[in-house]
């Protein structure tokens, strides 16, 4: 009787497991159709399991079903190569909710690597995205690219060679980027027009710029705010900027550790910042024309504290930078601020608290007017009390995916 009851329980457990199935895909001649069909056939709860091997794709892949995991056997073992890609703007596109991509690599996609658009609870874990030919302006723009997404987890992700940003989170909310590595990209990690992001324990090295937090006009989600950057290494960002000229990141000077442009309530602490020839930390206004009245081009409520700042700023690569460096005896202090606290038509004064320094304040009269700089150097700048945002909390199911 007892045994019978146990068997019954076991059987019913099997039934519930059977509902979430594993769709296995192996490398072979028709992998394009095989993977895409699996991504179409998956039901919520299913895992699409990609066996070890190299998959040569000819077109973009896409997933539009909720609650699906796409899983490989490791970032060296399962490689999706898009070298022969003939169409689509990215390697893998995800447009559904509660999707996890893990344990695989995407190589040489012609456009972006992996993009999610309008996805809730999107997770990228132990993923490598790489352009294998090294930095090249013909590489795709973004490696891992969640946009207009909510609850974003990026963990143990490596991106190399992106011609814009390796890890790029745009117009999203509630974001964690951790234990990841970005190298040989134009920008290593970029958080843009986003709200509530924690970026920590990452390494951004050998990019043109290490970690960027931007807010740009004329976009559906503006007013980016509340990002914490901590315990990251923004070191030796020394790859000459190879972005196509029109891109906003083409304006990131080679050798920038951390750059904040516009945006509000950004806290930068406990990071190691060194080996960046332009600046360790650069805090600047958006300096292009815009017509959007609701856009604020100033960085404000910015806190810098307790960072370990090494050698930076010995050969600044922005217009007018070398002249200013010359005036200052050859190099710039590690923290650079354009010093703009007031913008026509906006009521508030921008506040900062830079406890780390020395700080070069350019005291520009308006965004971008470097020729009118009145540089001053001080040990620190500002003592405004600026409350730190609370830690980002992801939904439990998603948080449980973390190590």
């Amino acid at each position, binding site marked *: 009787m007892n045994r019978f009851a146990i068997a019954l329980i076991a059987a019913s457990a099997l039934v519930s497991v059977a509902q979430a199935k594993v769709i296995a895909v192996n490398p072979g001649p028709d992998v*394009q*159709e095989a993977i*895409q*069909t699996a*991504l*179409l056939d998956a039901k919520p709860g299913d895992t699409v399991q990609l066996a070890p091997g190299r998959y040569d794709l*000819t*077109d*973009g892949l*896409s*997933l*539009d079903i909720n609650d699906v995991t796409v899983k490989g056997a490791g970032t060296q073992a399962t490689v999706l190569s898009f070298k022969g*890609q*003939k*169409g*689509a*703007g990215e390697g893998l*596109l995800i*447009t559904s909710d509660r999707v996890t991509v893990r344990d695989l690599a995407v190589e040489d*996609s*012609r*456009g*972006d690597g992996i993009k999610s*658009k*309008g996805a809730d609870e999107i997770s990228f874990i132990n993923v490598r995205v790489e352009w294998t030919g090294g930095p090249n*302006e*013909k*590489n*795709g*723009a*973004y490696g891992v*690219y969640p*946009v*207009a997404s909510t609850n974003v987890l990026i963990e143990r992700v490596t991106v190399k060679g992106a*011609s*814009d940003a390796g890890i*790029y989170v*745009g*117009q999203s909310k509630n974001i964690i980027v951790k234990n990841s590595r970005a190298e040989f990209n134009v920008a290593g990690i970029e958080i843009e027009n986003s709200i509530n992001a924690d970026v920590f324990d990452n390494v951004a090295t050998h990019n043109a710029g290490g970690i960027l937090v931007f807010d*740009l006009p*004329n*976009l*559906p989600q503006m007013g980016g705010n509340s990002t914490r950057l901590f315990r990251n290494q923004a070191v030796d960002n020394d790859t000459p900027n190879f972005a*196509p*000229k*029109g*891109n*906003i990141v083409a304006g990131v000077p080679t050798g920038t550790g951390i750059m904040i442009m516009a945006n509000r309530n950004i806290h930068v602490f406990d990071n190691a910042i060194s080996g960046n020839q332009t600046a360790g930390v650069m805090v600047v206004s958006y300096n*292009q*024309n*815009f*017509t*959007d009245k609701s856009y604020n081009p100033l960085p404000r409520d910015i806190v810098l504290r307790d960072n370990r700042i090494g050698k930076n700023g010995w050969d600044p690569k922005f217009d007018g930078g070398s002249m200013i460096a010359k005036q200052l005896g050859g190099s710039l202090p590690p923290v650079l601020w354009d010093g703009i606290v007031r913008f026509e038509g906006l009521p508030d004064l921008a506040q900062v608290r830079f406890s780390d320094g020395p700080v070069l304040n350019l005291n520009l009269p308006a965004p971008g007017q470097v020729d009118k700089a009145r540089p001053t150097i001080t040990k620190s700048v500002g003592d405004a009390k600026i409350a730190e945002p609370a830690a980002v909390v992801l939904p439990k199911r998603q948080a449980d995916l973390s190590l």
Partner: protein
Amino acid sequence: MRRWLAGLAALICLGGSTPPPGVALEALLADAPAPRLSDYQLFTDPAGHQPNAGLTPYGLNSPLFTDYAVKSRFVFLPPGKAAVFTKVGVLDFPVGAVLIKTFAYPADMRRPNEAVRSIETRLLIRKTSGWVAQTYRWNADQTDAVLKRAGARVDVAFIDQTGQPRRIDYAIPNQNQCKECHQLDETLTPIGPKARNLNGTFAYGEGQENQLDHWVRKGLLSGAPPLHQVPRTARWNDVSAPLNDRARAYLDANCAHCHNPRAAASNSGLFLTLEENRSPALGFGKQPVAAGRGAGDLKVGIDPGHPDRSILTYRMASTEPGVMMPELGRTVLDQEGLDLIRQWIGQMKTP
């Protein structure tokens, strides 16, 4: 004996006056797509040239460019059902409506009705749960088309309008890619049959007639105001129409299904619907956001007076994934469309 009788009955049916079976509404409304196009009985011949009862051919003033494919379009409405007029956006189609579009290539574009090879037939079916998109790939013998969900490439060769041989690596979209273009607010929707884009004449078997008039007269459309009150999308290739109207119609048909605040490219902030009138949203002086190398070293979407400095034309002129726009639906460039947009930007006054 019994078999012989059955055979005789079949013969009588064929020779007699029994009409061919109608469109298989049940198959259309089933949850799962039918494996073959013929299962729906939308056509009465195996090659899919003869529409069954209930199908009406239609055209669009300005259609999407798809690698020079010749498109034949039909709308099917269940008996007694009509679409409801809407002034903005696509008409409101009833459950059971089907939009049928066959993509085909004549061997020689200068003789468009001869040696025509059908590549795929796409269906948008209005089920009770909403619209569903499927595509069917034609077999080599052109006797039926088979459901194709994961996309495919098809080698297509033809002689173009100028007499040059062309070869195209035609892309049949996968099911998700259908939705990438056909969505508003993450819900699948048709793109073409808006009142303004149907508001033009069509050569029916019985003669030329304005399509909206025809649909009203045949009971396919209800609630339509008098024709003069209906907006009209210009024909992009009608040189007698104002250049601005043609260019905006072209962008509306080729870009605005994604570049729309409610669609796939909403995050770009570039919106190209005919109804859009904010100049940065249309690309004027607008910097690229996530274009990557698609920006091609250029600074703005549209630089008035300077097509060579405008990202719009740069991306239209490319066939490279990651640069080309649209991202889906073409593999070669639309030279005539590009010429139109270049001319439009070129004649703008520089600010």
